[in-house]
Structures are given as C-alpha cells and as structure tokens.
C-alpha cells in the first residue's frame, strides 16, 4: 500500500525533474551556446539531448527520470582507464567536493551527486539530481564538462587531436 501511495509522487517528481532538465538544456540552446540542439524521447522513458558544443562535435546526454540521472555517455571516447588523462579527469571531478575549489564551483551534495566511469568505450560522466534541482544539475554538469575539456586542452592535446579532431597546429 505504501508503494502504491508513493508511486504517483515519485512519478510526479521524475516528470518535474525531466521538465527542469529539458528546460535547462533548452536555455543553453536559446542562448546560442549549443548549435543543432535536439531533445527527443529515448527508450524506457528517458530523454536524449543532442547538440554541438565544444570542438564542434556532436554531444549526447541522456536523462533517466527513474534514477534522476543525467549521463554523458562516452563523453571522452577511447580514453584508457589507467591513462594520465583519465587520472587528471578523475582528480578534477573528485576535487569538486573539496574546500580547495572556489565555493561557486563546489558541488552542493544536497542538490546533486557526481559519478565518473571509464570502460572500454571511454569515460562517462553522470550527475544525479536530488529533489527539484534539475536546473542546477544540468548547469553544474555543463560547467564541469567545460572544465574537463580544459584539462585535456592544457595537458593532453594529443588525445583531443586523435579523438576530437583538434587541429594539430
């Protein structure tokens, strides 16, 4: 009975979160940060956002309302798990809960949670929305993605040349 009573509320929360996440992505498209923005339903009730942003390459993010998780799947393709670049990315993400980073860059754990996974296809970034903070999570994730690319630009340009077609010069 408890489960039945909770279901509508949970569904309502997930629908609200999906709406917030969609609106947040749309906001960046409307501001011209993204080009070619497209939002579409994906299997199992998920939402898929595709857009062109950094390095002029298509980027995909999928929001799963059931887990309230936004995933940038294979954000960094073919990234070896034990590579220095993967280590630098992992360190950058881990630092976001540290007091050593400026307050405005610090992750608010009451509003979202970060995860990072590297498998054979590459590195993926996940952010889970807590409560009604879909807009915060999207904004946080996109700013973090920008910073992760900067780490690669500064120290690992060869990876960006190989995987993202960054100009060699």
């Amino acid at each position: 009975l408890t489960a039945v009573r909770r279901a509508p509320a949970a569904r309502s929360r997930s629908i609200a979160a999906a709406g917030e996440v969609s609106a947040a992505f749309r906001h960046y498209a409307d501001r011209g940060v993204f080009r070619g923005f497209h939002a579409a339903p994906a299997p199992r009730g998920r939402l898929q956002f595709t857009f062109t942003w950094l390095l002029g390459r298509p980027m995909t993010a999928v929001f799963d309302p059931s887990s309230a998780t936004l995933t940038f799947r294979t954000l960094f393709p073919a990234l070896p798990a034990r590579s220095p670049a993967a280590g630098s990315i992992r360190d950058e993400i881990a630092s976001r809960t540290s007091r050593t980073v400026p307050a405005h860059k610090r992750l608010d754990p009451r509003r979202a949670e970060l995860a990072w996974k590297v498998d054979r296809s590459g590195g993926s970034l996940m952010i889970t929305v807590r409560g009604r903070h879909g807009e915060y999570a999207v904004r946080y994730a996109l700013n973090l993605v920008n910073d992760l690319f900067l780490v690669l630009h500064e120290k690992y340009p060869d990876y960006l040349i190989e995987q993202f077609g960054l100009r060699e010069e």
Partner: protein
Amino acid sequence: MKSKVSRRAFLRKAGAGATAAVAAGSGVPAPAQAAAAQGQAGTRASVAASAAVAPIAIPREFAAAAAAAPAALAFPMTGAQVFARACKEEGVAALFCCPGNYSVVHAIASTGIPAYGGRHEGSMAHAADAFIRITGEIAVCSGTEGPGFTDMICAIAAANAARTPMLVVASNMSINQEDTEAGIQLAYQQPTTEGMKKYGKRLINPRRVHEYAAYAFRQLRSGVPKPVHLDFPSEVAAARFKDAAELEFYFDKTKYRTEARPHPAPKDIATAVEMLRTAQRPIIVSSNGVFYAKAWDALKRFAEKGQIPVVESGAMKGQFPDDHPLSANAAPAALSSADLVLLVGQHCMPTVGEFAFGPDARYIRIDPSHEDIGRNIPIDLGIVSCERAALEALADAVPRLTHDAWVAEVAAARRTFEAQNLEYYKVGSGYTDAVHPAVIAKELADFLYRGTLPKEQTTVVSGGYGIARYVRRELRAFRPGQIMNGAYQYGAIGPDLGYAVGVAAAVQLGTGPQAAYKGHPIVCTTGDAGIGYTIMEIDTMAKHRLPAVVIVYNNNAWGTWVQATREPLALPIHLFQENLRYDKVAEGLGGHGEYVTRPSDFRPALERAYQVAARERRPALINCQGKKEFWDRTAFPPGSLGKIEPGVMSYYH
C-alpha cells in the same frame, strides 16, 4: 727578409680597421662602435685568418645611406614619387622589401622613411606585419611583379588573420600589355589576394595615383584594420606630373579621411554598467583593438575602478601589465568561472568553446565594426565603438565595485599555474643529455624579468611550435607592444626571423610604444622547423645592425612528427638531419652563434649572446639541442603540452 708582422696579426688589424670604418658612419654611439670593432675584429678576422679570405663586412654604402639627407619631394614628380610623398605625409614608419618595384621603393626610401632590404619578399612582408603589431604604426612591404608579389602571399594572409594594417605594394608590368603574357613575371595580383585584404586596387589611371593612396590610408586608418594591396603598372609608377593640376585628385589627408572615431551609445554604456553591477565574476578580454586604439590607460582605469580582472588575447600582448593584481593572463584555471565577459577589440573572433569561458558566461562585445558584432559568439550586449572611447566611457560611468573573492580566485589560479611551470622546469632540468624546452622557458624568463634587465625592457617575438607550448607559459608583458604573438591565428610556422627583423627594426627606431626601449636587443624564440624558412634574414639583421637574440629549439624534427610515429613510411617527412648547426649558419651570415647541448649551459650562452647583441649590434643565435622524444609524454613527461585561451598561452585568437 721576413716581415715582423705575422699574417694572422696583419689580417686581424686589417679586419678591425675595416670594421671600425663601417661603424664610424653607422650612427651607433661611440662606445658601441668601439665594442663593435673589437667584437667584429675578433670574430671576423679569425674567420679570415683561418680561411685566408676577406672577412664578412657591412658595405660602406650603409653608413653613407644613414648619413644621407632625405629628399623633399616636390613637383615635378613621377607617379611613384606622388605615392611616396603620400606615404610620408601619412606617417608611414618603415618599408620592408627586396629589390623590385624599383621606382616605388626607391621613392619611398628617398623620403627618409626607414627602408630595410632583406633576402625574401615573404620575410620582409612578415617583418612589416610584426613592425606594425608592436608599434601600431603603418609599415609598407613591397615585392616585384609576379614572383616577388607571390612570395608575399603567406605574409599577407597572416597579416589579414592578425588584422594588421599593412600596406602591400607591388609592381605589375604594364597596362598596355595586359593579358598578353609579353615578357615575364605577369600575374593578376588582385584576385590572388582576394579574402586576404580589406581593400585592394590595380592602379590603372596615373592621374588618380594620389586618390588611390587616399583610398588606401582611409582603409588602413579606420575601423578594423587589415592589409591593403595596391599594384602598380609601369604607366602609373613612371608617369610624370609637372604640377598638381595634372593629377585629378591632390588633397591633404584632412580632406580625404577623418580622425573621428565612433563613440558608444549612452544607453549601451548604462546597460553594460548595470550588467557589471550584477555580475559576480566579470572579466575583460583585451585584444588588438585596445592596442591599435592606444586604449591601455583607459583599460587600466576601467579595470581598477570596477575591480575587474583582465586577460589578453590577440596578435600582440602587453596592453595590461602581467604583474598587475588584476591580470588574469597567467591564471587559466580561473577563466571558466567568469560570469560576464567583456570582449574589447577582439577583432578576430573565436567560436564557442575556443575560449575557456563556461557556458553560463554572458558576453558584452565592444568593437568598431558593426557588422561583426554577434558573429561566432552570441552576445548579450553589443557596443559599436572605438575601443578607447568605450573604455573611457565605461571608466567614467562604472561605480567603484568590489570583487574581492573573484580577484582572490584569480590570484590562486595564478599561483597554481606558476607552481605547475616550476614543476615542469624541475622535471625538464632532470634531462641532462639535451636541452628540454621547460629549461629554455624558465631560464629565459629569469633572464628577462628576474635578473638585471628591467622587466619591461625586452621586446619578444614569441614564435615556434613545440617550444612555444613551454615558452609562452613563461613569457610576460609589462607594457604595450612587449610581446609579438607570432603564430597568431594564421598559424604559419616559418615567419619568425622575418618577424624578428620587423620587431628589431621597430625597437632600433624607437617607434610608438618602443620609444622608451630604443636600441635594446630583442629576443626571438623559434624552432628548427621555423628557422628553415627564414634563417637567411640573419644577414638582414646583421647588415642593418639589428640586435636580436634568436633562440632556436632544435629537436631534429617538425613538431608534428608524433602524429606519424605509427607510419614508418611517412615518418621521414617529419624529420631533419640530426644535430644541425644553425649557429654555424648564423656565424656564416655575420651573426654570433652558440650551440647548447646541456641544460646547464643554456643560461651562460644566453648571457653571452645578449652581450654580443647589445655590444656589437648584430644578431646572435643560440642553437639549443633538444630531442624530438621530449614530446613523448610516457618516456619524457610532461611531453607535448597544449594550451588554454585567452591568456599567456593563447595564439589562435
């Protein structure tokens, strides 16, 4: 009877005498002459003695030219002289060329506009570009007919990408023989520079030669600059005019252009101030337009009043001093925190993502070109204005704001960056069998900014490819025009010694912001790939007595070799012979050479080279022997580095 004077001593004495004779007419101060005589005698006579040939010597005609009075051009004049007179009236600061387009370049040189002749028209056009980039004054480059003109194409394209107001002139056969392929060297010039210029014209009416000079200078001195290209058929250059009445147009510059500049709309300034009031982490990007508008004082006043950090981009650096507490030039980790970005005079715009700013940053763009605002990066506010007028208006209108936490974040990012550089230096110093680029970068910066030289003294050509990834991190600018950003946007690898000619000439003449540093040696950093294109300009610098310290990072390869490591058949494309002696080439061209193979030897070689350049007023080349494997991160960390833009590392935009 055997002479009491040995052959060696005789040659040494003869060489010293010849050198002293050249120095005597060179306009160089007496102590420098003495030192030059001593130094040149030492080096050149020993060459003569060992090879029993005459020493390298600067022809006496150079001293004679330095002492000659300029011609006051008055009617009757040729078309070339009418044009040259317009150049003089417009304040053209220098001419860079090779022989060719004779009547025009001779007329320009005769007016007293300093004229530099080099080994390749392309190098000389690069020299003109560089001269302009660090003085803000107009310079001319010239080539002859088809080949001399097409030799300049890379430089024209580079100047166009850098938004340089460079005047390109070239002779171009005759109108009468148009389309015939009569004789040699015919080329259609104007279609060739399509897309590389702001304005161009083949002059076909001799009586309008002054009018087209006016067209050229109106374009060069207004709005967002770019090269202007005029080609001169013989009928125009050789035309003879008894008086002004024979020209259709002959007016003073006050009649054909204005010094007026567009000013910002008051409501736009009010909107900008309101955006600044609400921003927590605003930042100013100062670029080319701030330099050309000489807006550095207004920039400083605005930044300090609003407590707004400043980061630089563009074809030259130094509009905002790097040692200012508000400088974010060496604070790349802070850039993505900015929530409001003011792009000032960013004439060559990046696209979204090319600058480090995050997706939440809002943008104000200040630019004199209405039609460019909103291109590439969407704006939240566009201000059409001369950069100086806008910065002065903002400095007047903005209240005193405080962004202490933001400034502290910038300072922390700066410390992190400097610590990272130091770490690279420590690692690089550990490789003792060759010179690592991190060693060159750090020790060059120590020498320029933390030694006995005033830190704002030395103007630097920041060139090269792989070496630049390290050196840029350490180079700093403390006054306008201190760094010429070599590879900027067009990304040509080879122009560096051409650039060095232009920068050294600007400092030799003390033009524009270089006035306070007149005569001091400059520094040029480059790689072994780059120097292959322009090393002959060592001769140009030597004969014009341009003191430059050229640092060559020699890793036996193009910086691109890493991309071919898995392609054995392609790899040789990227490689040179190993251990090439560019220092010997420099010596053979009248420069001083140093060859450095160990990190501990670099600083002493740098000090010697600088002393030779300062004392003897000639170029010195330090050939730093590295190895290509230093770009391999696994074998030799930190390997090849990347960059973040804008700031000290930036060169794309």
